[in-house]
């Protein structure tokens, strides 16, 4: 492009009169550039979004072209559906634990890696590694590890004298949810970790130097420099972790399929099961409207809060 840069000063005056017309042409170009994206979003996101809402007032078996309107019957059924509410309760636990423990681990490990000089790249690589594995792979490996007789987890507990803690992890209603949450945390904490680490590296060094001049040490420096500087990252990581926890599906499906009973059932799996196992597409749509609506609200509230905080 350097070649075309050279004649610029000469050409500018001769071309100048034409410059107005291209703006309209460029405006058209703007739309043309956007068309593929908008078309795909319209057909595969906006239409389904509306369709889901419509479907929640209809009855559909997944095959027939006949989808009669049934008013609020699906919502009525959804509200009286015990597994659905069990799944909402479980996913709330997922959300809270993911939010507190998951973000906690991510942040502590980012602080730890940030404070050492040697091996940073190695630790970063290793910590993020679980995050590039699929939920199916992770589910299958942990199914085998958590197996009651042959699983390595029980063997290790026995070996260190904690045999009393051995469980049939995925089939015992008392611990199944705990086990699945543990797997989720293992899979997911590296994501927040990467973002926290990048956030820590962006905090200007002079802030720490100024704080040190004022006599700040470890905790005080964290409290008055690191924490507030990291706040924007913390709020986005929190939201993303929370949303990931609330939308959990594959991990649960592979590990327990929601069982035993409904003790690890989560909404996305319940929606899937109602639709594709029981062919109650209308009921499933009502559940997805209730649950999806709650997620949308949550995102809006969280984004609003963090935006207000940012502008304050």
């Amino acid at each position, binding site marked *: *492009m350097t070649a*075309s*840069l050279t004649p*610029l000063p000469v*050409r*500018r005056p001769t071309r100048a009169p034409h410059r107005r017309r291209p*703006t309209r*042409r*460029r405006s058209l*170009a*703007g739309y043309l*550039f*956007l068309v*593929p*994206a*908008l078309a*795909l*979003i319209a*057909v*595969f996101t906006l*239409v*389904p979004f509306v369709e*889901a809402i419509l479907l929640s007032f209809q009855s559909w078996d997944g095959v027939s072209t006949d989808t009669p309107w049934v008013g609020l019957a699906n919502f009525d059924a959804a509200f009286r559906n015990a597994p659905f509410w069990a799944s909402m309760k479980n996913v709330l636990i997922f959300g809270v634990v993911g939010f507190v423990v998951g973000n906690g681990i991510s942040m502590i*490990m980012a602080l*730890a890696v940030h404070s*050492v*000089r040697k091996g940073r790249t*190695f*630790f970063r*690589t290793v910590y993020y590694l*679980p995050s590039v*594995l699929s*939920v*199916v792979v*992770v589910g299958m490996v942990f199914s*085998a590890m958590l*197996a009651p007789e*042959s699983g390595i987890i029980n*063997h290790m507990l026995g070996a260190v004298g904690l045999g009393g803690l051995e469980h049939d992890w995925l089939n015992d209603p008392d611990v199944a949810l705990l086990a699945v949450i543990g797997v989720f945390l293992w899979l997911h904490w*590296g*994501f927040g970790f*990467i*973002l926290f680490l*990048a956030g820590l*590296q962006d905090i200007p*060094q002079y802030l720490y*130097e100024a704080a*040190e001049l004022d006599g700040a040490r470890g905790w005080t420096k964290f409290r008055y420099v690191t924490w507030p500087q990291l706040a924007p*990252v913390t709020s986005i990581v929190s939201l993303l972790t929370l949303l990931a926890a609330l*939308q959990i*599906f*594959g991990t649960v499906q*592979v590990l327990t399929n929601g069982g035993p009973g409904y003790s690890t059932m989560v909404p*996305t799996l319940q*929606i*899937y099961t109602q*639709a594709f196992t029981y062919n109650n597409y209308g009921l*499933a749509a009502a559940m*997805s409207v209730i649950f*999806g609506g709650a997620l949308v609200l949550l995102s809006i509230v969280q984004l609003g809060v963090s935006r207000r905080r940012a502008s304050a």
Partner: protein
Amino acid sequence: MTTTIHVPEQAHLDVPHADPVRRKKPIRPAKAGLYALLVAAAISALFPIVWMLSGSLQSLHQLLKGDTLIPVVPQWGNYLTAWIEGNLAVYLTNSMIYTLAAVIGILLVSSLAGYALARISFKGKGIFTGLILAVMIIPAPAMFLAQYKVLLALDLANTRQGYVLILITSGIPISTLIMRSFFASQPLDLEEAASLDGASAMRTFFSVMLPLARPGLAAVAVIQAFAVWNEYLMALVIFNDNSLMPVQRGLTSFVSAETPQPQILLAATMISIVPVIIFYLIAQRQIVDGISAGAVK
């Protein structure tokens, strides 16, 4: 990653001047504790993967006893069995096709859109930007069912095209925003020069701006490649024909249809992550860039 190396060096240089005596002694046990934590976390992150490798090389008998990490006699045959019984050649090929097609589609569509939103002034730009942001808030659980219904209506359920279109669509919003901020940070001169030379917007985009955007494209491509390769929910919903399934869906189908022995399943799982691990080690930088760019938007 230059900043990674820079900041701590400065920190270290400053410490002796600021506080030469107090720093040196008490730091030792704390540092040992810190490294213990780091190593423990590294072991816990790696252990399941090491265990998967170990289990995939054991005999059924040994695996069920579960008392060793080192296979007495490595059963390489497990991998052959897994490859054949698990139909992995088909599933892996499908995953490659979907990943390649979807990533190319995402790059093309979202760089066009991102460029328009960053650099072309036209009416309604704010609305379109808002729309793309808003779409990101709609979660998968609210949509996957109706997406299936739309695919059925378009005769695209249980087809490669349908799956790739869904994959592209879900990658568009975040990728468009990343590309938009990437284009917005480029200098104006080249583009102006090209338009003064009479190049059309399309030509300017493809021959001037797109080559400049290579780092942005790379970050988007890497992040989306992982997302597509690991996608499971829509693959589960869309496909019932085994010959079309990507590897994630194929693995669960293998389990439910054949109930393979655990060591064979572990070998199949291990095979499925080989491309992922290799790609991860090669493309690390882009991953960090891409995740950060995506989250900040």
